[in-house]
């Protein structure tokens, strides 16, 4: 076999790239994964934690689908807790402080050991395409046949297809599918105060050629922005001025594969790695106000869109002038480093002002900054240009995933990388794409939002973006998605075994839930009521439905669920507690299904529908939704527009 021919090439070794590469290789494809520096594999350029609200759901789903992030997050965890614990299970979110270095090294080693995967340090400078005749790619260079996209994708209109890539050293590699997961590295500029330099995060080099190649292929690019706070040295911090915020006991890690014994190790060591809560003060705000003009973000040095939900401290002070203090959070960066991440001080201020700002905070008077905060500006692809399988609409075989597609966050990137990898495989094998539905996963919501709504600032996952939030819990991610992994061949034997056991336990629970409990002292104790209140017996289901009943106490009292692990008990309990609301939610889902089956033509000119408002016509022509239900979700499409479509196409 020629050494320069692969089935697929992945451009970039960040959180998206590694998932794409691993998925392809595990599904039997020969993969070349090019990263500009192998030191930047799975580099956590910003916060040293994984998970959090909505993001934990994504990690659990990645794990359920056979991805790598959850496994490695558990391995690198130095502290773990459940956010939103005071609320219901649907919005519980696991979050782990991760050792950045360990996370990188472990992932690199996973890639090294992966059969079929070739890890290469090289900057990809050009995407090579061939002409497409009918369903076949005509390419003298490779002679390889491009795959057929699945039924839902309109390949007939594509005139180009990917045939490979070229690197900075002039090497050419051929493949039928290329996944671009270049993160924030495309023509990236680092901005600190008035200093702007072409660079990737943490002094990794920027990728300066690939943008031009993409643009030449007709891929639409725009400028996005994000920022990261300063890192400070542990011994220069007076921790006595901060409130300690440690880890907590949790039922399960991110991965179903993580053994209880491994989780226990994390729980044991986490007391050594707490986070610390502190506040800015009026002095801090005064310094910022006086120097706001020197900030790279405010001075006009950058005109790109930054994330609203992750505002710089300058923006916070301007926007919420009445607030006298803002929270900050000190997070440890790992076991073998004394760097602390200063969550809350995202800034584009010059270095000397950054120091003044940091040192104005109580407890940080003598803080030594090790790495300055910076803003970074980069080229991102307009996500409306890709189909829901993450393949570009105009170039067959060219996939995009991660921050380059306009998202933000490690978890969002990894989720897209995994799906891009899976769909690249399905494309190569001319099989139907895997498009996860909004009502079955956060990943489905994420990709659907990117492809249909588009984004004008880096997209962060939020639980509110999911219509069926009460159903899409982190504790049932495997029940929702692992079947896909098994069918695709991404689930290893131990995952299959664990999944089967879970399914069986939950099935058996149905019968146990019907068991009637006698109105005695034991039941009163479990329900937390006086014995006298109990007039008659209750089924286990009815008992659990009561807000104050806890399944763990119930089970330790009655020992009904024998041999069922705690995290499965928790799932059983959640299913019961939400059952009434899920019924309402299911009725909604059924309605949406009708719209999902209402397909719209792909070559229709919406300008001919004069009853549609101009904005709607433009959006529909640009996005060309495949179903009415997709059209409904496009921003700027009103209910009345949908009725026009219904009337026209019925």
């Amino acid at each position, binding site marked *: 076999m020629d050494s320069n021919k692969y089935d697929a090439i992945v451009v970039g070794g960040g959180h998206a790239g590694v998932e794409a590469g691993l998925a392809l290789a595990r599904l039997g494809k020969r993969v070349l994964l090019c990263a500009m520096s192998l030191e930047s594999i799975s580099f956590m350029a910003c916060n040293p934690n994984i998970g*959090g*609200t*909505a993001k934990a759901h994504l990690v659990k789903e990645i794990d359920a689908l056979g991805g790598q992030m959850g496994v490695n997050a558990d391995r690198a965890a130095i502290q773990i807790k459940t*956010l*939103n614990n005071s*609320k*219901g299970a*649907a*919005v519980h979110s696991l*979050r782990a402080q991760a050792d950045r270095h360990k996370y990188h090294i472990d992932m690199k080693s996973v890639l090294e050991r992966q059969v079929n995967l070739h890890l290469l340090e090289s900057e990809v400078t050009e995407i090579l395409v061939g002409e497409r005749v009918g369903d076949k790619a005509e390419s003298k260079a490779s002679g390889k046949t491009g795959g057929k996209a699945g039924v839902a994708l309109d390949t007939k209109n594509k005139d180009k297809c990917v045939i490979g890539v070229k690197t900075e050293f002039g090497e050419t590699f051929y493949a039928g599918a290329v996944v671009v997961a270049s993160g924030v590295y495309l023509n990236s500029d680092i901005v600190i105060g008035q200093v702007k330099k072409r660079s990737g995060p943490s002094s990794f080099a920027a990728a300066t050629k690939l943008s031009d190649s993409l643009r030449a292929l007709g891929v639409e690019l725009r400028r996005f922005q994000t920022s990261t706070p300063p890192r400070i040295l542990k011994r220069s911090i007076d921790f006595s001025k901060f409130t300690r*915020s440690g880890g907590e006991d949790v039922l399960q890690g991110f991965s179903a594969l993580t053994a209880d014994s491994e989780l226990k190790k994390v729980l044991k060591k986490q007391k050594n790695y707490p*986070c610390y*809560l502190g506040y800015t003060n009026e002095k801090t705000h005064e310094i910022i106000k006086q120097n706001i003009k020197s900030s790279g973000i405010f001075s006009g040095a950058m005109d790109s869109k930054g994330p609203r*939900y992750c505002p710089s401290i300058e923006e916070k002070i301007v926007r919420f002038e009445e607030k006298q203090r803002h*929270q900050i*959070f000190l997070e440890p960066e790992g076991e073998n480093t004394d760097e602390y991440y200063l*969550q*809350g001080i995202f800034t584009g201020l010059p270095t000397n002002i950054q120091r003044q700002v940091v040192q104005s905070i109580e407890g940080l008077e003598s803080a030594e900054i090790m790495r300055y905060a910076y803003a970074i500006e980069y080229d991102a692809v307009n996500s409306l240009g890709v189909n829901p399988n993450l393949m570009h609409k105009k170039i067959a075989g060219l996939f995009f995933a991660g921050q380059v597609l306009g998202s933000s966050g490690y978890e969002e990137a990894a989720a897209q990388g995994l799906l891009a990898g899976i769909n690249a495989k399905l494309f190569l094998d001319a099989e139907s794409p895997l498009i996860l539905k909004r009502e079955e996963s956060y990943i489905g919501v994420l990709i659907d939002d990117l492809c249909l709504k588009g984004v004008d600032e880096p997209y962060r996952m*939020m*639980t*509110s973006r999911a219509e069926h*939030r*009460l159903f899409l819990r982190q504790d049932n991610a495997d029940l929702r998605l692992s079947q896909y992994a098994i069918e695709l061949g991404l689930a290893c034997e131990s995952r299959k075994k664990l999944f089967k056991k879970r399914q069986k336990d939950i099935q058996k629970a149905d019968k146990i839930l019907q068991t009637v409990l006698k109105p005695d002292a034991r039941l009163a104790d479990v329900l937390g009521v006086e014995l006298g209140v109990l007039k008659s017996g209750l089924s286990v289901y009815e008992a659990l439905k009561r*807000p104050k009943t806890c399944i763990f106490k119930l089970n330790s009292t009655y020992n009904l669920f024998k041999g069922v692990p705690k995290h499965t008990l928790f799932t059983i309990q959640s299913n019961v507690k*939400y059952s009434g*609301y899920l019924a*309402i*939610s299911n009725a909604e889902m059924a309605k949406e299904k009708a719209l999902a089956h209402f397909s719209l033509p792909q070559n229709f000119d919406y300008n001919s*529908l*004069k*009853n549609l*408002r101009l904005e709607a016509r433009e959006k529909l022509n640009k996005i060309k939704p495949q179903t009415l239900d997709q059209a409904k979700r496009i921003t700027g499409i009103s*209910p*009345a527009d*949908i*009725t*026009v479509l*219904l*009337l*026209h196409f*019925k």
Partner: protein
Amino acid sequence: MDTIAGISTPQGKGGISVVRLSGASALSIALLCVVGVGGKSGIGGKACEKMGGGGQVDKGKRASDSIEIKPRYAYLCEVKTKHFSDKCILIYFKAPHSYTGEDIVEFQLHGSNAIANGVLAEVLAKGARLAENGEFSMRAVLNGKMSITEAEGVASLINAQTAAQIRAGYSLSSGHLQKRVLEIEGLLYSALAPLEASIAYTQEEIGEVDLSGIPTIIEKARQALLELDSAAGVSDIIENGISVTLVGRPNVGKSSLFNALVGADRAIVTDIAGTTRDVISESFVYNDVVFNLSDTAGIRQVTDQIEILGIQKTRDTIKGSQIILLVLDSTDITKDDQQLLEQFSGLNLLVVLNKVDKAGKTGAKFKNAIRVSANTKQGLDKLKEQILVLANAKGLEQGDTLYLNSRHKNVVKKALEHLGTIKQAGDLETEVLFFVVKNALQEISKISGKDFNTELANEIFSKFCIGK
């Protein structure tokens, strides 16, 4: 969308009839059917001049060949159909300044069914499509010319029979309900925002979110919905009137009272007990409210097969009535009366003491009874007033009555059901509370039209006559 056409005036003879076209090709289709736009014939000559006069083309030459039609000008011309020609006025409303928001052409014709039908057939032959029920109004909604509730108000106006119904329709079409609904939506949104913030962001990002105001906001929204709900009861009365049934022992004067109330000798009156066998119904209007009054067979132990059936019918009628009038003979109160009173005690009941013009004070113990005489008409207005009070139908004479149709009523009920699951806001988990409030919001937005679908469209617009 295609161009639609319909006859906008009612079937039958009249001064004029109107055929209307709406859609992108309205004008070009209309011009294919006319000649001599703005002719010199004396008909309407000066008025036509004043209205703009338009242009003039040679007889026999199709207007579309040369003339430019100005919007909102009346053109006198000749409409040619397969079987006849006639003079008519043509007015063109250019999009978006028209009822539907599309190009509209109106033909004002002589008021004959045959002419209107002939012209309609002609424009259909030239490429227009027959409008479905309410399609003109539906297009107005789709094109953002009016909200759904406003369109529903138009439908109510078309079907109005009493002054109160007209006011109700006008209230809807003026957006009174829309305003209230938007206020409720605003409240619910203001509850959702902090709930969402507390779920979506970690404490270290935004600190503790203050949720203490939420129960108050939700309660405010619930109260506003309850107001709409009670307005819905009144609206129901405006729409359908009040059903009132006279019941009582035989021969207490139910039928006399019935005749006195409806103001006509409708029921047979005799001194023979058990004269009324079947249920007799008649309507009358009092204070803008339609009273649907039923007279029934007197209730007693009988063996007569017909009378047994009659009494059974009485009981069925009672079930379907909003107000029951238990009629007593003030000169002759018996144990049976007492029994009937007990029997009907759970119902919306008024006790009516009849024959008070005659001597005898036996009815004195019924303190709240209304004293009337079918004979002298004494106390009848007071009785009608009491019925209005009991039916919660007072205040209809006020102009700004909030009006809800049965669809709105159902939406309000469902939204209240959703909010009803929140017994104490503090008891529900934050995300469940959010879910419940969001569902209520989605439901109520079916009134404002923010959640609009064909199912809804069909339900609403099927009530229109074709041309509107």
